[in-house]
């Protein structure tokens, strides 16, 4: 059986099953089981791609190549480890009275449905279905962000819905314009919304229409990436939702949105034959780096702080893809992978730390190492990883991006360095007293899930030192597909 069908069927089935029995004590384990099944299916798909190269499926409606296969596996992996993290985390939340039975069912079934929507968005060949899947992913996470039903979470979810809804409406307009450009040049027998057909004819797409289409698509999908100035929903959604959702939002959904932007950029570059698309992305990327970095200085809530860090990192990635060229693209893809792993590891540690201290305000969390060395060291290591300390993978990707910036866009390198330095100072100075020193936190009622933290950090460390040959191959191929200067 085509492993792609399993990749879709498993989370869909999981969503249905958990909608019925998610509140039972073993509902958490069923969630983990379905996520593990999705991971196995994704790994089977990966093996198939390694063996046979790019794959079309289901009458060309789905297309897996080197650009999305590693994202599919990453999504399945982080979906699985987050479900492992959800087990003790949601159990503690339930014990503290923050979740009812109905909301547990909602949480687990929406979690699986969210996985399904992301995998659909990553593997679809149809630009229209890409839009539908992105909107559906937004809708599922809106329900997940508001699951605690506190006033703050309702505000966060409403803001998220309205801002991302407006953003994604712009993306729909961009898709309509793209369709209009495509209808003129693609032969009548072929589907004009399939990315592969568009990619084959990208040189003859009308430049006027394509430039307007790309602007709308960048603004639209860029809202979901968290690019400044469209990022206002991001800190609230991360801070008020359950921590597993912050982890998958930062680690996965932002990546999927950036993937959508990249696919559109490839088409725009082909049609426009100048650096218009890339320059727009460089502008938004640098703005996001600066806004993210300087906003870090004012934060008091730990999850808001790390969400601004996500904005900064997505800015770095957007800048890298905007610059283009083999090294910057490779570095951007590597950054997408290690950032997802490191940021989700940080959020796992942060989640348990906040539960121990019963507060998300950083001044209330002190001295984690004394009470729970594993959570404390997990947070410290995760922070070092996300700040770009060698030998973690983010150092490698940031180094590559900086050096290629120095070659191609020398004026941008000081801006990036400033952003990275400010972020380092801001985050490290906040995390250090939280981990070391006198403690005020209590142990948790159930053992925290620390395997995911160290698994992710281990992978991030490995990718900083050694990239497996097939991953290297995919990054190189994908970098060539993305093109650029």
């Amino acid at each position: 059986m085509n492993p792609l069908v399993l990749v879709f069927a498993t989370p869909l089935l999981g969503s249905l099953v958990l909608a019925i029995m998610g509140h039972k004590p073993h509902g958490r384990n069923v969630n983990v089981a379905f996520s593990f099944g999705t991971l196995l299916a994704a790994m089977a798909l990966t093996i198939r791609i390694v063996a046979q190269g790019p794959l079309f499926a289901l009458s060309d409606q789905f297309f897996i190549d080197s650009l999305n296969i590693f994202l599919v596996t990453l999504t399945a992996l982080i979906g699985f480890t987050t479900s492992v993290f959800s087990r003790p985390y949601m159990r503690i939340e339930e014990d503290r009275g923050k979740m009812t039975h109905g909301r547990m069912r909602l949480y687990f079934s929406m979690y699986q449905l969210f996985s399904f929507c992301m995998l659909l968005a990553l593997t679809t060949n149809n630009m229209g279905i890409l839009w539908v899947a992105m909107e559906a992913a937004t809708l599922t996470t809106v329900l997940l962000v508001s699951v605690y039903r506190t006033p703050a979470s309702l505000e966060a979810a409403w803001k998220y819905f309205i801002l991302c809804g407006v953003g994604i409406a712009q993306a729909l307009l961009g898709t309509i314009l793209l369709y209009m450009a495509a209808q003129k040049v693609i032969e009548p027998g072929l589907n004009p919304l399939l990315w592969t057909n568009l990619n084959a004819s990208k040189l003859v797409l009308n430049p006027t229409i394509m430039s307007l289409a790309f602007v709308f698509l960048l603004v639209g999908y860029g809202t979901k990436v968290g690019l400044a100035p469209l990022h206002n929903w991001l800190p609230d959604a991360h801070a008020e939702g359950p921590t597993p959702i912050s982890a998958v939002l930062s680690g996965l959904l932002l990546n999927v949105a950036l993937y959508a932007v990249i696919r559109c950029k490839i088409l725009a570059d082909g049609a426009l034959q100048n650096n218009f698309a890339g320059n727009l992305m460089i502008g938004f990327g640098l703005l996001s780096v600066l806004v993210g970095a300087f906003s870090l200085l004012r934060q008091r809530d730990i999850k808001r702080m790390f969400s601004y860090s996500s904005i900064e990192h997505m800015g770095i990635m957007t800048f890298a893809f905007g610059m283009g060229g083999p090294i910057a693209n490779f570095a951007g893809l590597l950054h997408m992978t290690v950032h997802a792993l490191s940021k989700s590891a940080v959020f796992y540690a942060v989640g348990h730390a906040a539960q121990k201290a019963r507060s998300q305000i950083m001044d209330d969390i002190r001295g984690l190492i004394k009470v729970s060395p594993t959570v404390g060291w997990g947070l410290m290591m995760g922070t070092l990883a996300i700040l770009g300390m060698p030998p973690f993978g983010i150092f490698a990707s940031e180094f590559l991006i900086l050096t290629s910036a120095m070659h191609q866009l020398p004026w941008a390198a000081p801006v990036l360095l400033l952003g990275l330095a400010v972020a380092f100072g801001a985050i490290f100075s906040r995390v250090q007293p939280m981990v070391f020193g006198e403690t005020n936190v209590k142990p948790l009622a159930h053992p925290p899930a620390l395997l995911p933290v160290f698994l992710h950090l281990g992978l991030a460390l490995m990718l900083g030192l050694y990239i497996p040959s097939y991953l290297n191959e995919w990054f190189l191929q994908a970098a060539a597909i993305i093109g650029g200067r």
Partner: protein
Amino acid sequence: MTDLSIQMINLFASLLLLLAFAMLAQRRVINLVHIYAMQGLTVVAATSLVAYVTHQEHLYYSAAMTLVLKVFLIPWILHRLIKQLDIRWDVETLINIPSMMLAGIVLVVFSFNLSLPISKLSTSVTPGTLGIALACVLLSFMMMITRSKALPQVIGFLSMENALVFAATSATYGMPMVVELGIALDVLVGVFILGVFMFQIREQFESLDISHLENLKEE
């Protein structure tokens, strides 16, 4: 006959623009829902006419779906919400209505300017309507950001989506059916979720005034 049909399509497009302005000026919430339903009806009429002129069968299905969803189902859901939430107020706007109308005119001129080069390249029968569709999108957006209550924001969002469907019809004879179905499903689910939210916002804040939802800031 096609000449008359094309004139009729342009007429419906102008009606759509007029209704968008009417929404901007409207203060009572129940009338907003009625204007939204009328917008849906206009889109249905325009889509059916385009289907007739260009012999694109799938546009009839698209028009039927719009009719069921946007003229009957969603306004009915909104009516029920208004009754259950007991919303009776006249809507306050952040900027006074004459200023909003002037801003709306500026937006329309801007949209027409923006879409002029694209309309020249369009091969569809109604190239001029793309500018109107873009103007309606921007007007709905302005309505969303200048209203201080939850339900008008939702209606602004829905009317933006209506304008986008009309843009798709006028520029590209609609989108492939599977995409249209997906969009319709997203809109429907979105309305449900927004309805659920409005209840919860009301429960938490005892009011549907959006200014209550401005507390999440950095200190």
